[in-house]
């Protein structure tokens, strides 16, 4: 058999297998609901998505299928998840979403991971009429965006709410006489950090705080010691960092090494990751951070247990529960409508309230305002200490040393 023959046989073989695959595929498609998921598996945001996004999709799909699938008018249907890696690249994301819509012909798509991606991909989801229940997306343009895209929903709050939470916590500490009014503030120099710092500056000043150190640093800065040294030299009462995962870890480590004594120490994204507690142990007791949860809430406690059992790892103490709740909203809306009709499902989400792990969620102008804004590591658990429309916030504690 020469090489040409081998090639010919191989390609015939492949064609047969391919056709068989397609046939079984379309047979399968009739009795499943196809759900697309595009989020980073590689690139700068992959580490975060591997904590807050992907495990929840796995958990949700397993639980829906274990109970027999989604209850529709023509019987129960299981969900089938089709995943793509957007490589933390908005262009790739849009291509993958287009592919899901036109080639895979999925019934629904799970909203992207990250603020920029939710905004960048909104037009493509809107074009194909997919409801987009965004979670990890914090923006002050919520009103404008929901006005433009009728299928776009927000569940984790606005930039102002997010910053306002920190202002509340620090004001509370100042009123009790625990801290003075000097704040050192740093931010990562990308869209997320810059927007937060821009919103925070006037809010802190309005609340009577004085910003004694205000610097930014590029994403991926390998040595953050000059920043902690500079902040320490300014002798502040509180330290606030609008940071991303690698620098959240880096700033905290440097603060421990420099023995940076402040009464309130706040880092943003990834403070709520179990890995943060795992890395620093008891040293980060009373560190403040973005997010929070109430592990004593029976629904949350049960969710955390199931997450651990199914995915083998702990959920984070912030967006994980919101991400799962958004999937619950989608499932309940599909069941409520009784068919995979995207337009009806979108309308259903607008008109109804949903029973989720985050409690009862209801959308007003496509925005559900029920989320934690600030959490604090208290004896090994990252508890919510400030929230919008959620009860059960723990009292804020003062940071005393890095032991």
């Amino acid at each position: 058999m020469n090489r040409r023959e081998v090639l010919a046989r191989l390609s015939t073989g492949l064609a047969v297998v391919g056709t068989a695959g397609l046939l079984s595929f379309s047979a399968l498609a009739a009795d499943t609901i196809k759900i697309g998921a595009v989020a980073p598996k590689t690139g700068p945001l992959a580490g975060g998505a591997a904590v807050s996004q992907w495990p929840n999709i796995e958990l949700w799909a397993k639980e829906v299928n274990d109970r027999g699938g989604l209850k529709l008018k023509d019987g129960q249907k299981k969900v089938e998840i089709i995943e793509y890696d957007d490589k933390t690249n908005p262009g790739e994301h849009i291509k993958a979403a287009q592919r899901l819509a036109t080639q895979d012909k999925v019934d629904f798509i799970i909203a992207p991971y990250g603020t920029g991606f939710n905004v960048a991909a909104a037009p493509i989801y809107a074009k194909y009429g997919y409801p987009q229940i965004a979670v990890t997306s914090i923006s002050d343009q919520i009103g404008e965006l929901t006005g433009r895209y009728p299928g776009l929903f927000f569940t984790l709050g606005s930039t102002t709410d997010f910053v306002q939470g920190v202002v509340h916590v620090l004001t509370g500490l100042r009123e009790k006489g625990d801290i003075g009014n000097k704040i050192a503030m740093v931010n990562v120099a990308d869209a997320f950090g810059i927007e937060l710092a821009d919103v925070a500056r006037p809010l802190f000043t309005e609340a009577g705080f004085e910003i004694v150190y205000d610097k930014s640093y590029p994403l991926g800065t390998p040595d953050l010691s000059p920043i902690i040294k500079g902040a320490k030299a300014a002798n502040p009462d509180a330290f606030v960092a609008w940071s991303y995962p690698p620098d959240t870890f880096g700033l905290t480590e440097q603060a421990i090494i420099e023995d940076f004594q402040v009464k309130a120490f706040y880092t943003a994204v990834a403070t709520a990751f179990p890995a943060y507690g795992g890395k620093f142990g008891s040293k980060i007791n009373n560190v403040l951070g973005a997010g929070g949860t109430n592990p004593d809430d029976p629904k949350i406690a049960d969710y955390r247990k199931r997450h651990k059992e199914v995915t083998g790892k702990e959920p984070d103490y912030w967006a994980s529960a919101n991400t799962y709740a958004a999937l619950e909203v989608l499932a309940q809306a599909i069941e409520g409508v009784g068919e995979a009709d995207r337009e009806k499902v979108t309308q259903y989400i607008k008109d109804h309230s949903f029973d989720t792990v985050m409690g009862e969620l209801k959308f007003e102008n496509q925005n559900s305002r029920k989320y934690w804004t600030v959490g604090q590591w208290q004896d090994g658990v990252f508890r919510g200490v400030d929230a919008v429309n959620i009860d059960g916030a723990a009292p804020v504690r003062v940071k005393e040393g890095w032991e």
Partner: protein
Amino acid sequence: MDILVSGLLLGGTYALVAMGLNLQYGVARIMNLASGEMLVLGALAAFWLFTTAQLSPVLTMIMVAPLAFIGNWLIYQLLLRPLVKRAKNQGQLEVDSILATFGMSFALVGIMVAIHGEYFTYSYLANPFEILGTTVALNRFVAFVVALIIGVTLVLWLNFTRPGTAVRAVSVNTEAAKLVGINVPRISALSFALGGAVTAAGGTLISTFITLDASVGVIFTMKALIIVIMGGVGDMRGSIIAALLLGLVETAVATLIDPGLTLVSAYLIFLGILLFRPQGLFGKRAT
């Protein structure tokens, strides 16, 4: 003093990142775009063994180096040697090796994501350490010392031993090296493997103080490339000095002017050197 100490430590980190690529690019003529991934692979090994077996990253480094040496030697023999053979000139080899190693970097990222898709974060020697009146992190200091040991050993080996001299000869002129009886394919494979080992060993140390993830390699490749070109391709002293210089300048700018301008300052020096000394600090002008 703060600036000097912190800057030198950062420079040591950069040296760890760049020395391996210098051997691979300067001697074996392989523009290895998967260099950063090799570094992250070392970091992953350190993270994984630390979290599962509480194994010290320094021990991991000692294990990783020979493994990376063998791995890179195989990569060179199986994947890159055919490219070297068929390349008619230096330019073609450069293009081919860029494409091949670019592909390799994706494969490595995929493998690492499959092993651990989250951040490689753990705490090792994250203690304050007093040196010349400045507080630094002990893990950074250890990395600096190891970088220094590797760097000095490499420079001595290259300058005062027979195989080292052969490596330098290949780096200066492949054709002439053949004429004086040097086994160029063997020396090239050796340099590529040694470069990979140095990079992976650097990764294990860097993982103790920088939080890495599977896809972060490209950032290190870029830094390494800048340093190698600044120092002069194929010159180990040049890479080490360029790395220290970069560390000092970035720290000085971050402390005295603004942390936001560190990247700008790094690229400014790079640009300056490209403009006024395109062959690099220690490089010889091509004849």
